[in-house]
């Protein structure tokens, strides 16, 4: 599992190629929509009207569009949490667990220091959230760096542990007096500010800045160069004097920190409270998005947007078509299947 066979840059710079790539992806999504349409017909629903609903509810109104952006925010971060370790050949599938622990740490800050002013409390929560995610990623990172256990397996196992710890903390210590399954609402100082009367919050800015920083670091710094060297040939990198073990641990922890930040952003910016199973697969979604985008920052933004449109549209499908909300996962899965399987037709002219 350590070796990554394909590291194709799917979103190469340069206008012409970007356009080609975007068209190719749009065609693939169209194919997925046709396949999902067949499923809708089988289920006795009108596919055309369903798609009209999805599009008009997401892209057709300013409010719908803002909701798409809102659901995109944590995905940007969880995808980056996969993309960064990926550069040194680490497969961080533990974003889900790191997100939960990050959210728990941030919640600890919000509940313990409710009297602090926002300009102290929010940075504190950011640091706590990143610390929590980093700690959770340290376990697989360290075990990998000493050559003991593969990071894929450990981070996967820890995914299942983290939500239960969060459940334990909420039920045991943090639940609000009236409600045993969630914490009290955070004070205003512990909430990320929102923009223009929508639910879009500061997390968007954090996510985009981190993606840009990631891009700059990979492209222009020595670290980026060294990480690329480790990713393509770890043994050669080690012989060239790059501190391999240190890189592996630090990068894994950084990835975890970003996923933890996603958890903090979600509880502080979106929910304003912590409850069990709040993530609903955001960490796994980040893994998918990163993989679909080939680890490229711009690709991550685009794929996160597409996934968010699909997910936000699912809400409406539930309301107007009487379908279970989970059914929208089929459309998402078809998109993933097609992009992953990429039929020859879509392969383009690249080798």
């Amino acid at each position, binding site marked *: 599992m350590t070796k990554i066979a*394909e590291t194709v840059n799917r979103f190469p710079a340069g206008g012409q190629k970007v356009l080609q790539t975007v068209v190719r992806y749009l065609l693939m999504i169209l194919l997925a929509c046709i396949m999902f349409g067949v499923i809708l017909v089988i289920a006795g629903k009108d596919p055309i009207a369903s798609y009209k609903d999805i599009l008009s509810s997401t892209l057709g109104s300013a409010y719908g569009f803002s909701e798409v952006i809102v659901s995109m925010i944590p995905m940007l971060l969880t995808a980056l949490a996969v993309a960064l370790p990926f550069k040194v050949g680490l497969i961080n*599938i533990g974003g889900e667990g790191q997100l939960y622990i990050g959210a728990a740490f941030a919640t600890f800050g919000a509940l313990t220091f409710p009297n602090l002013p926002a300009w102290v409390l929010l940075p504190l929560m950011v640091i706590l959230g990143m610390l929590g995610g980093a700690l959770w990623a340290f376990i697989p990172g360290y075990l990998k760096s000493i050559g003991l256990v593969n990071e*894929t397996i450990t981070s996967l196992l820890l995914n299942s542990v983290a939500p239960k710890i969060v459940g*334990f903390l909420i039920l045991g210590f943090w639940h609000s007096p009236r409600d045993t399954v969630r914490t009290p609402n955070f004070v205003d100082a512990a909430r990320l500010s929102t923009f223009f009367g929508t639910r879009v919050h500061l997390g968007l800015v954090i996510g985009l800045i981190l993606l840009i920083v990631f891009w700059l670091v990979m492209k222009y710094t020595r670290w980026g160069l060294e990480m690329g060297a480790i990713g393509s040939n770890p043994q050669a990198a080690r012989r060239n004097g790059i501190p391999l073990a240190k890189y592996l641990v630090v990068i894994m922890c950084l990835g975890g920190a970003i996923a933890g930040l996603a958890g903090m952003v979600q509880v502080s910016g979106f929910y304003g409270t912590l409850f069990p199973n709040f993530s609903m697969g955001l960490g796994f979604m980040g893994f998918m998005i990163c993989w679909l985008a080939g680890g490229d920052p711009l690709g991550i933004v685009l794929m996160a947007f597409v996934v968010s449109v699909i997910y936000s549209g699912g809400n409406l499908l539930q309301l107007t078509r009487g379908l279970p909300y989970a059914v929208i996962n089929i459309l998402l899965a078809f998109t993933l299947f097609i992009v992953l399987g990429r039929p020859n037709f879509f392969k383009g002219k690249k080798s």
Partner: protein
Amino acid sequence: MTLLSILGVLSSAIFSGTSLLYTTLGEVIDERAGIVNLGLEGVLLVSASSGFAVTAISGNPYLGILVAMLAGGLMNMILGYLAITRKANQLASGLALMFFGFGLSALIGKPFVAVKIHSLDRFLLPGMASLPLKYSSLFKFDLLIYLVIPVAILVWWFLYRTRWGLSVRAVGENAETAYASGRNPRRIRYQALFVGGMLAGLGAAHLSIAYTMNWTENMTAGRGFIAVALVIFSKWDPLRAIVGALVFSGAVAFQLLLQSSGVQVSSFLLDTIPYILTLIVLIAWGGNRRHSAPAMLGRVYQGSE
């Protein structure tokens, strides 16, 4: 705490452990051939919902089991197409399969929420007939429970004592060498996935048709991931998988016992036991390469066209 409640807990642990063991055996076969199926959760859901639906419509639970197995095998074929033929990343393909399963099972199962079914017949464990009724009813198990250990032994026998099993393991260790020795790695991986999917489907069928006897959305609640953990815990060995499933259902039983005896231990923390045990075992075995994972696990077989 009475003897009755202890026996009741053990009885329900056997029920929940059975479906888990079938699922784990299926994943053992997948992974022995070199394919990690992270979509197991989705496979289970689709099998559980379709098996339940068929049972509800036809009134025949055995037909439902058959359909659930077929559904499991077919779900795994999707993974096979992506990961073997299209050479896509296995983890990403598996997760995509999981999301597909969430959606498809919700669609299949929706008309059958709160429907009652005729479940599998239960037979009394031999030698227990003399017990009073309230005890003996705890020793009534269905056919799938009696068959689970023999099936585990059968899977072991297939993997270690037949040509097919040798091929599966060879492909999982080194597909190139397997190819050089005249085997077709792709076909063998497809076969392993289909058989593994059928076993997972059997586990899911036992869950929805024989154990809970109803369908609720997302009813597997992480069993797919527990099975993936148990495969690692059991070192990819079907016989050790029996032990793994016992440890897990033991932990569940232990938790229920503690609760019924009034001890205040968070069920959330007890739920983490199987994962933490697996982690500890992994670390303890870390240095030992001999019995570790199939060497090509998770790798794409590039092969010659």
